[in-house]
């Protein structure tokens, strides 16, 4: 209800002018905002205009993906800021990466700063490229080896790890690591049992028969070595420990591996990752604790 502007209404109780609005007998007093507040409000508006001028502010719905907008006097955008800080990081990294190109892995590992850089860089590269198979903590799974332990198929020296990563295992790469465990299908059931019992005895200390041991030495020793300690140059697993990759350390497990051997395939990273990254990965894997 708007009343005539001319006659002012003064509230009897407070002596303050009312706006003339009235609801159920309650009148609205006319208390203007404090002056300083009004000025502050005006200042913010002025500030906003200045801001529009200096910074990008208004979207124009042009450009790629509607990213367009007014440019602003100083031509600043978040994209540019991002690019600048990325370049800064890249240039800082470039120095260290150069050191990787120049020096051998052994030298890098003796240098505390480069070592720390390699472990950090290797860790992030690992998460990106390797975690899918080996797990983010490199703890592996059935068929995918745990890289934390000290049981290596292909050797745990820094050089060997580097070569494994670079050329892969059972790939098309000409320098790939490769070996095949032959299938012994058609073997007598009794022999299978004896060999399996011998292999289990290696890790568990159970009893075995002399025939079992002899059969093992005839058929398996060439690759898996005396007492089953494995042979890194052939990628033949250590079968005398409690770390098992493809099958379980049990009669059915061992028998199945003898009859239908399983083999793992690990991609070669040469060509996919640059050499500096592969070096960092090797140092990281080596640093997980099992490195020799």
């Amino acid at each position, binding site marked *: 209800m708007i009343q005539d502007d001319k006659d002012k209404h003064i509230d009897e109780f407070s002596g303050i002018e009312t706006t003339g609005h009235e609801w159920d007998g309650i009148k609205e007093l006319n208390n203007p905002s404090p002056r300083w507040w009004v000025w502050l409000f005006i200042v913010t508006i002025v500030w906003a205009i200045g801001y529009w001028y200096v910074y990008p502010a208004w979207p124009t719905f042009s450009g790629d993906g509607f990213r367009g907008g007014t440019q602003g006097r100083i031509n600043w955008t978040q994209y540019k800021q991002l690019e600048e800080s990325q370049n800064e990081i890249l240039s800082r990294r470039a120095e260290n990466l150069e050191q990787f190109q120049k020096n051998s892995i052994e030298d890098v590992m003796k240098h505390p700063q480069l070592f720390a850089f390699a472990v950090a860089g290797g860790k992030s590269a690992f998460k990106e490229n390797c975690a899918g198979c080996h797990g983010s903590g490199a*703890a592996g799974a059935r068929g995918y080896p745990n890289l934390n*332990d*000290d049981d290596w198929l292909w050797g745990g020296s820094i050089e060997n790890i580097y070569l494994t990563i670079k050329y892969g295992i059972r790939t098309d790469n000409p320098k790939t690591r490769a070996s095949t465990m032959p299938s012994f299908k058609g073997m007598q059931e009794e022999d299978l049992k004896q060999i399996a019992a011998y292999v289990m005895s290696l890790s568990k200390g159970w009893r075995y028969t002399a025939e079992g041991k002899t059969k093992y030495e005839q058929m398996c020793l060439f690759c898996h070595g005396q007492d089953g300690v494995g042979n890194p140059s052939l990628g033949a697993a250590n079968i005398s420990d409690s770390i098992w990759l493809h099958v379980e350390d049990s009669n059915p497990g061992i028998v199945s591996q003898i009859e239908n051997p399983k083999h793992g395939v690990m991609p070669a990273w040469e060509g996919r990752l640059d050499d500096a990254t592969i070096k960092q990965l090797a140092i990281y894997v080596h640093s997980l*604790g099992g490195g020799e």
Partner: protein
Amino acid sequence: MFITLGIYYLAPWVRWDRGFNAPDQAILIDIPNSRAYFFFIEIWPQEVYYITGLLIIAAVGLFFVTSLFGRAWCGYICPQTVWTDLFVWVERIFQGDRQKRMKLDQSSLSFNKFWRKLATHLTWIFIGLITGGAWVFYYNDAPTLMSQILNFDVPWSVTGWIIALTGSTYLLAGFGREQVCNYMCPYARFQSAMFDEKSLIICYDESRGEPRSPFKKGTSWQGRGHCIDCKICVHVCPAGIDIRNGLQMECIACGMCIDACNNVMDKLSLPRGLVRYDTELNQKLLEKNREKKINIWRKRTIFYLSILLITSSIMFYGLNSRSPIELHVLHDRNPMFVQLKAHKIRNGYDIKILNKTHEDKVYALTVSGLERAEIKVLGAGNISPENLKVFADSVGHFRVFLTSYKQEHLRQNLTFYVEDVKTKIIQQKNSIFVSGKE
């Protein structure tokens, strides 16, 4: 006023020797290196709880003082009051007292008016500048920054702060004044909650002053009050209130009206204290002609005081028992443990050693609670559990492997110790050794 100002301006120049690698400014908040220094105390960012403690002490201290003496903070120490007083003082120097100022304001623009106004504002801005200038000294090495400022070679952030503080000082103390207390300051609002009738406040002694009326020389004081209605108390009031109407929210207890009224009473050779610090209770007692009493020990004050004591003793204990070494141990979660070839089990830990001293240190790491444990520290160069180097005033980060056999408890509790090889100061931390899935 000058004491408070003096402290503010001079504090950053106080030096405090902390040895070789450290800043020697007594009070310094070093943001780039994330350290705060306060005389013998040095706070790292993860120790902000000391600041919390400090703030609690400050707040409760304020409550305590308020419940005893009313708004003593507002009247005497609050920067807003101090700077306003300073600005008013400048104003008086250039434009004379209140009457002259009012006349000047009303007069039309003249050279006299112009230079007086200009001088006032320029001085205000100058004060603002050195206020902002002093502020930034708390965040930077004062002498270095001073020479930088004098050479106009100052980092952007510093310039920004100086400008912002100059502006705010100029506006708040020059124009805002008591409005800041009335509209902006939250403390002014909730202070009333800390008052009771035994708090000291500024009161006008109504029983003595009333009925008031202007006084003509030679007439008698009989049958009238001592207040001569000169309104000087109203004129000097920075908050613009009339204290004779009783305590009001705006009153900041600065006591200007007391001084002014006492002067008048002296001239009239009447006893001082028509306006004075007193408690509400005393006023009531006085009306009934009973004796005054000041009661300091009240539930309220005892409560505040005990909080104050508890907090400060916790702080004191904390600061005193603070070790120059801090140890953090994080047990690996992925993987929790690693099965090794020869039935051994390995656990990995991220260990951080904080060296809070100003010397490079060598620490030795040992572990107890785990039998047949081997400790290995990963890293390049000549590094071993007995030889962990941590630079002065920094954090050493180490990868540590513990190798042992399967334990009775799959989660075995154990304790790590680091010992400063030279001073033999030891710090410990509990952790676990996991040797199998539960």
